[in-house]
């Protein structure tokens, strides 16, 4: 699972043919660290979203991602040890492992946070209320039939760059996609979990609900 994910990312970033410049170990460690960094940011957002929407499916995604992070941590540790040939390189790699391990700690803390959803306590209205006071918050955004966003990939829409709306997860007919990449196509009835400012959300909402055209709203 992790291996596939990394291969997919390597492919996406066109790094497969990079062997000439860097050794195999270097590329792997580098890719692992990038993934761990991205995941550390994503998992905190997912955990807050799970709490705000009291959604156990999102909580499950947090737990899955956490276990992926454990595996990546193991791999990066192993590869770093194999890669250290001098004292200097060992020192540098210890710094790198410190960063990876911090990213892994974030996923542990996020997992503990969503465990609140499994305890027999009622979170509402307290936590959703508190978290909804933040300047940037998480919202759900449903894509309705007839919206200009239907059938487009996130890359094509360039959503975050033109609206400031960051998609952290998508629930489609079959499953959850966390941290969707540019190639993910939006379909009618998808539910997006987004992180953004209130103003940006108000702007995109009518477009998603097929009440306004993309071109009228986006500059």
């Amino acid at each position, binding site marked *: 699972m992790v291996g596939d994910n990394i291969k997919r990312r390597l492919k996406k970033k066109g790094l497969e043919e990079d062997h000439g410049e860097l050794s195999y170990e270097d590329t792997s460690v580098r890719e692992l660290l*990038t993934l761990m960094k991205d995941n550390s940011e994503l998992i905190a957002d997912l955990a807050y979203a799970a709490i705000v929407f009291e959604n156990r499916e999102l909580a499950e995604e947090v737990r899955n991602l956490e276990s992926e992070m454990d595996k990546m941590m193991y791999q990066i540790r192993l590869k770093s040890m194999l890669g250290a040939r001098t004292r200097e390189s060992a020192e540098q790699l210890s710094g790198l492992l410190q960063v990876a391990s911090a990213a892994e700690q974030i996923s542990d803390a996020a997992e503990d946070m969503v465990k609140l959803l499994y305890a027999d306590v009622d979170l509402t209205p307290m936590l959703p209320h508190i978290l909804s006071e*933040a300047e940037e918050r998480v919202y759900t955004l449903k894509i309705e039939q007839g919206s200009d966003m239907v059938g487009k990939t996130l890359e094509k829409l360039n959503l*975050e*760059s033109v609206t400031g709306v960051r998609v952290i997860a998508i629930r489609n007919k079959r499953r959850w996609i966390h941290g969707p990449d540019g190639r993910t196509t939006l379909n009618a009835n998808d539910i997006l979990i987004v992180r953004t400012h209130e103003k940006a959300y108000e702007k995109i909402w009518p477009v998603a609900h097929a009440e306004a055209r993309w071109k009228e709203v986006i500059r």
Partner: protein
Amino acid sequence: MERGDKMKELEEELLEMKNTSELMLDLAYSSLLYHNRDIAEEVFNLEQKVNNLQDSVITKILEDHEEMDPDKNLIFIKMADSIERFADAALDIADVVLRDIDLHPVMKKSLKESDEFMVRKKIKKGSYLDGKTLEESKMATEIGMKVIAIRRGNQWAYGPAKSVKLKHGDLIFARGPLNSESALDKWVG
């Protein structure tokens, strides 16, 4: 103090912890990318702030625990604990910069390949951003860029409020989607 006020204060402190821990993580990765000690030291200061807030949250709960719902107390304490661990992790990242060890060459490459990228840009005189507040600039809502720090001369503003006015000569550190870099380039120059 009225109970309602106390509750409100608790909520505000928890939210402040969340906001601070997120800023810390952005700053920490940024300090690593630019090997910047100033930013790394700010992460260290902010970690103290998060610790103090956590202490304050727990103290308030202990003072009033008899009148409050134990379940709610538990939620507050657990949330505060998770957030504090986010902050600790950010500090661990910044610590790599503070320890003065040469950064592994792979590290910078990794950070640059990230989905969310960090930029450092100088605002030129007469540019679109020159003289605008962060809110007026619409950086967050139109191109998805979040300013995490501003350096003006020797002064730093970390996690600047939206009312902060940008001036030419300011060095801004921002994070956002890779596709927005060209838009930002036009806005600063």
